[in-house]
């Protein structure tokens, strides 16, 4: 995967949204990662550490990865069900369903300041 470039993306996104003083105060970033985003949390953590030590930015910032499961919504039953083992079916009616409403996320959910 391309975790290193994703970490650079996180930094760029923050830098374009916060002032220099605000950036200095960021002590944690909550990253929301869907199970379908193809991001491996362990690799993401080590990529984060690698970029921090290479670029010297965000030295006092922690990366929290929030993994979220895959959810599909069935219009027939108006129910949302969680997908297990990539078996894309509605657990209520058992019909095949790939109307994914959660699971592809790759975004900064929250930024913590001290």
């Amino acid at each position: 995967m391309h975790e290193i470039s994703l970490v650079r993306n996180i930094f760029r996104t923050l830098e374009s949204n916060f002032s220099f003083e605000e950036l200095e105060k960021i002590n944690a970033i909550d990253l929301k990662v869907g199970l379908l985003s193809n991001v491996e949390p362990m690799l993401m953590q080590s990529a984060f550490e690698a970029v921090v030590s290479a670029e010297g930015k965000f030295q006092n910032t922690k990366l929290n990865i929030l993994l979220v499961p895959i959810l599909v919504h069935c219009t027939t039953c108006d129910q949302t069900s969680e997908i297990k083992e990539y078996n894309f079916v509605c657990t209520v009616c058992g019909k095949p369903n790939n109307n994914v409403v959660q699971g592809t996320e790759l975004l900064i959910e929250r930024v913590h300041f001290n």
Partner: protein
Amino acid sequence: MQIVRTSKNMRGSVQCDNTTMHLLQANDFVADAIRQEVRKRNILLINIVSSAGSGKTTLLQETAKRLKDKLNIKVLVGDLETERDAARIRQAGIDALQIVTGGICHLEAQMIWQAMQKLNLDNTDMLIIENVGNLVCPASFDLGEDYRVTLIATTEGDDKPKKYPRMFLTSELMLVSKADLLPYLPFSVEAVVKDAREINPTIEYLTVSSTSGQGLDEWCNWLLEKVKEKKETTQEKELVVS
């Protein structure tokens, strides 16, 4: 950006707006621009993905032979380091441009946009992208394509869909390639279709071989049909507008 600022001096935590802090936002923005551009120009855009060596370039060579007199086709080929695939496709008689990613494991919309500026797209019916051989990363990058086609070779084993669910979830067509080798391999087309459809119930499939020619007419007809559909829908929109 929509950030709920609790005070002028940031303290505590701030909730971010989902769409603006999306990490692949830049890619998706360019992908939309590509979508608009190909719609305006009436071009069908196809993104072909697979693991390394599943037979993408060979299939495009065979496709070129069969369709070059019927359609005006252009190809963009992504490769980590070499220029070889574009040369192979040009030999088969269609215009191809190589995008050397220099080690990046997927194509991004920005690379496609830049390459499109170098192609003469006048009167082009179809632009085909051969992505970098990799079933993981290219799945996350929208290139503005109308259809995503995934190749899975009989030599790879029939358990691929569940290992790379996002790719199968986002593809409209699965091509089981190197079908000429089926008699010699423990590969079940039925099993791979079943697995793929557990992920994506609407995925279509074709069994093809670039060596024996099996399924290539169906594949070419599928492309011709999609080119026709695209031109029709664009024309309908023009009628509505005028």
